[in-house]
């Protein structure tokens, strides 16, 4: 009856829902002695066809795991991982469960908002918002051309299609992802070496794997954790190179604490040992690589002793690691990482990614069992040009591509938008599912930049810091309330999956991504490129890979044609069609074409610390911090705390739980300290989810610190990444 009550109220709150489930659960708790009551309750609920199940895709992070949601009386009750989905493999992580409840969060945007002159926000109708945005867009195009417009998005199935199509239809090539603050350097580096932007470790067969900064136990994808757990079970040697003993440490055989931003020295030291002691795979190097002689000549300088001096890992350890890898080769690999230590962190991140690839090349593990695998991804084929008219190629090149030629074509560097706003080349910016202001570079710098823009539009589910800095905020419905375009998943096998709505929209004045971009396009005069619904587009896309919306909706996920993966040396899709120890493109960008040493940019002074960031398993960047269930965990377990090595704490007279003032050249803030033995002395660790400044996100605001506040604005040369860890900080104890 509680379920009914919740149904009857027009805008059911989370609280009434909880009351409902608490009541059913409480009845259940009665167990044998009131089983009758529980069953009667269920029978009554069944009149409203209360219990229903359906598949969808999680939005807790960009993995987009498959999930099965169960609703009771139309309200979400539980979610579980989809068995057949290659990322979830039957389970969901904590943030997946938390993000599934997003629809009921009290921090949601419920209607379009427009910023007033005094900086506050007032509701505006969709029609007015679209009309006003359309007029502004036309104005900008008339004055500065379409190349003065840009969109930044954190890719989601519909978002990456619609945002790009919208921007291209307007005549602008300025489409950017979040990558410059995520994995741009790593993907770009891997691409220059191998032609692919990523690779995976064959955990099922590996004998030894080395993680550089990345933590499967913190930046979680369930399948990765399972793979690693399996490898550890099977006795693989798991080496974690990280200044912090992260939560993946539980699977590790070795923890190699290292000076932040100096992983490249370790890698080059290992490469030196492999080359100078003739432990490398001659066949692979001679037949499948280019530039090895130059690399070998250069790597001779990078002795283990030299590396120790740079990265503070003992030379003996470096030699031992190199020898063990050589012994395990080719069933071993350096793991490719993601954001972690060289996704966007340092001046040398791009080069570190190349060095990772170089070591794997020396080990001859590319494509080998237990080694580094390059797999393919499916994508939709060509669609009916009448129903889905082709958008003309924009005339002007994307802003930033010239200065940052090594940024990936698919991502660009979103910081070009920040610079573009400052110099006037960009005047209208759209953000989709992106909290750029809070996370992509120093927030103060972003705020200054977007103030200069004529039009800033944020599309989000909540009043993020980016939304707060925008002129118009358009509310999207949340993950389980919307249908999105198919998600194509690559790997040894190929799949297509769908995000389908599980529940009715809780707030009727929110719209889905496709509705919003179609509405924007029509208002901006380019509606002719959007004469279709998202369902029609999904159907057409799926038809090109031999399946249908109905089939995918039914099963949740459909396996596509077998791509025919086989072990063996892969085809390197580089310009030379070989693994590249040297790259012409890198030379053109004005950098050393040969994979070699690049130092980190900022070195702490005597009384300063290195500051490293990292994810926590329950949060996805800054977007999940305000979610009730996840925020409660952060608060209960003090997850916002700054980690400090016990030795440093003792020296500074700081005890666990003390409050400290943290300051860099850019910012000062106070935070509670967690004193730990799990950190290299001289280094501080700050989780990168905290320090929200949005008064609309009541439980996130003012909770912890935002690392990006402390980091100076500077971009990785030629790549354009945000260099999120190029910072030195001071700490002093203050009264809490």
């Amino acid at each position: 009856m509680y379920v009914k009550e919740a149904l009857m109220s027009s805008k059911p709150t989370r609280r009434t829902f909880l009351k409902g489930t608490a009541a059913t659960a409480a009845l259940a708790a009665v167990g044998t002695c009131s089983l009758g009551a529980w069953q009667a309750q269920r029978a009554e609920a069944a009149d409203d066809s209360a219990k229903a199940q359906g598949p969808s895709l999680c939005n807790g992070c960009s993995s987009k795991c498959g999930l099965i949601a169960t609703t009771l009386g139309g309200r979400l009750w539980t979610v579980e991982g989809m068995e057949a989905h290659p990322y979830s493999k039957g389970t969901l992580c904590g943030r997946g469960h938390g993000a599934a409840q997003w629809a009921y969060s009290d921090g949601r945007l419920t209607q379009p908002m427009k910023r007033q002159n005094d900086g506050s926000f007032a509701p505006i109708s969709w029609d007015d918002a679209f009309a006003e945005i359309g007029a502004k867009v036309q104005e900008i195009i008339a004055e500065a051309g379409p190349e003065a417009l840009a969109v930044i998005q954190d890719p989601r199935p519909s978002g990456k299609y619609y945002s790009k199509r919208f921007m291209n239809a307007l005549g602008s090539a300025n489409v950017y992802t979040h990558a410059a603050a995520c994995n741009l350097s790593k993907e770009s580096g891997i691409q220059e070496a191998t032609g692919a932007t990523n690779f995976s470790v064959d955990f099922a067969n590996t004998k030894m794997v080395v993680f550089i900064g990345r933590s499967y136990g913190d930046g979680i994808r369930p399948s990765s954790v399972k793979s690693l757990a399996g490898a550890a079970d099977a006795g693989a040697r798991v080496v974690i190179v990280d200044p912090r003993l992260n939560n993946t440490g539980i699977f590790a055989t070795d923890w190699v604490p290292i000076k932040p931003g100096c992983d490249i020295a370790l890698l080059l030291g290992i490469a030196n040992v492999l080359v100078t002691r003739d432990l490398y795979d001659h066949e692979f190097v001679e037949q499948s690589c280019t530039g090895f002689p130059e690399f070998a000549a250069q790597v001779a300088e990078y002795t283990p002793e030299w590396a120790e001096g740079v990265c503070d890992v003992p030379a003996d350890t470096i030699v031992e690691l190199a020898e063990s890898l050589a012994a395990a080769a080719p069933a071993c690999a350096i793991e490719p990482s993601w954001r972690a230590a060289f996704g966007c962190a340092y001046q040398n991140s791009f080069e570190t990614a190349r060095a990772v690839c170089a070591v794997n090349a020396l080990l001859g593990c590319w494509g080998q069992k237990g080694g580094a695998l390059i797999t393919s991804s499916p994508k939709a084929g060509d669609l009916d040009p009448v129903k889905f008219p082709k958008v003309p190629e924009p005339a002007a090149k994307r802003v930033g591509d010239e200065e940052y030629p090594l940024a990936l074509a698919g991502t660009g560097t979103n910081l070009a938008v920040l610079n573009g706003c400052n110099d006037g080349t960009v005047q209208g910016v759209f953000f989709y599912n992106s909290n750029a202001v809070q996370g992509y570079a120093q927030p103060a710098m972003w705020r200054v930049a977007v103030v200069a823009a004529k039009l800033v539009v944020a599309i989000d589910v909540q009043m993020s810091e980016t939304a707060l800095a925008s002129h118009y905020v358009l509310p999207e419905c949340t993950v389980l309330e919307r249908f999105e375009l198919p998600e194509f998943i690559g790997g040894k096998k190929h799949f297509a999956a769908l995000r389908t709505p599980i529940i009715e929209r809780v707030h009727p004045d929110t719209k889905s991504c496709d509705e919003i971009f179609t509405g924007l396009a029509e208002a901006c005069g380019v509606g002719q490129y959007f004469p279709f619904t998202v369902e029609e587009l999904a159907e057409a896309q799926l038809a090109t890979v031999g399946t249908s919306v109905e089939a995918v909706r039914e099963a949740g996920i459909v396996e596509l044609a077998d791509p025919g993966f086989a072990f063996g040396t892969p085809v390197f899709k580089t310009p030379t069609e070989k693994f590249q120890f040297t790259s012409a493109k890198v030379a053109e960008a004005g950098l050393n074409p040969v994979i070699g040493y690049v130092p980190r940019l900022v070195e702490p002074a005597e009384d300063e610390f290195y500051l490293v960031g990292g994810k926590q398993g329950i949060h996805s960047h800054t977007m999940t911090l305000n979610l009730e269930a996840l925020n409660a965990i952060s608060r209960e377990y003090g997850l916002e705390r700054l980690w400090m090595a016990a030795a440093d704490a003792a020296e500074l007279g700081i005890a666990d739980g003390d409050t400290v003032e943290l300051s860099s050249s850019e910012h000062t803030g106070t935070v509670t300290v967690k004193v730990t033995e799990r950190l290299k002395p001289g280094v501080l660790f700050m989780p990168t989810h905290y320090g929200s400044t949005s008064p609309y996100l009541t439980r996130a605001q003012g909770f912890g610190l935002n690392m990006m506040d402390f980091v100076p604005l500077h971009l990785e040369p030629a790549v354009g990444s945000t260099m999120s860890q190029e910072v030195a900080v001071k700490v002093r104890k203050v009264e809490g």
Partner: protein
Amino acid sequence: MTRYGMLINTKKCVGCYACRVACQMVNGLAPEESFIAFNEVEQGAYPNVYAEVVPVQCMHCEDAPCEAVCPTHATYTTDSGVVLVDEGKCIGCKYCMAACPYGARVQIEETGVIEKCRFCWYEGEPGNPPRCVNTCISGARIFGDLDDPESEICREIARTNAQPLAGDLTAAKIYYVR
């Protein structure tokens, strides 16, 4: 006889809190209420450190102190060894909270009742498996019949020499691999 129990392998737990949130959802708990608590244990000194997360919840003790002290018999044990709470009898005196050596009893704000993990007991039997097991991303949890020597849990307990957290203090039915 069936005697339900659980194995938690801390050597596989990355502390992702999936079990906590899944449990909250299925049981309709408020965000601040949890049947599972997480203890981070750090041993050794830099750089020779071992860190583990030990999830703690109701151990479904055969010698359950909470049941022994419960003045109203709201806490009771089923034939299959699952310790349950009869909400209709609980007055919220919190004696069980005090008596539980594992701190596993939780007061529900909405009702005042002192609840706890009940192995997802809904329809006269425990969840198959309970949600925390179902969603564990690394397979750190196994649920099953401790009286069936052929069950996965029994084989795993034997293989790993898993032990209850507090030895034989309360004849707990959650076994830990440490």
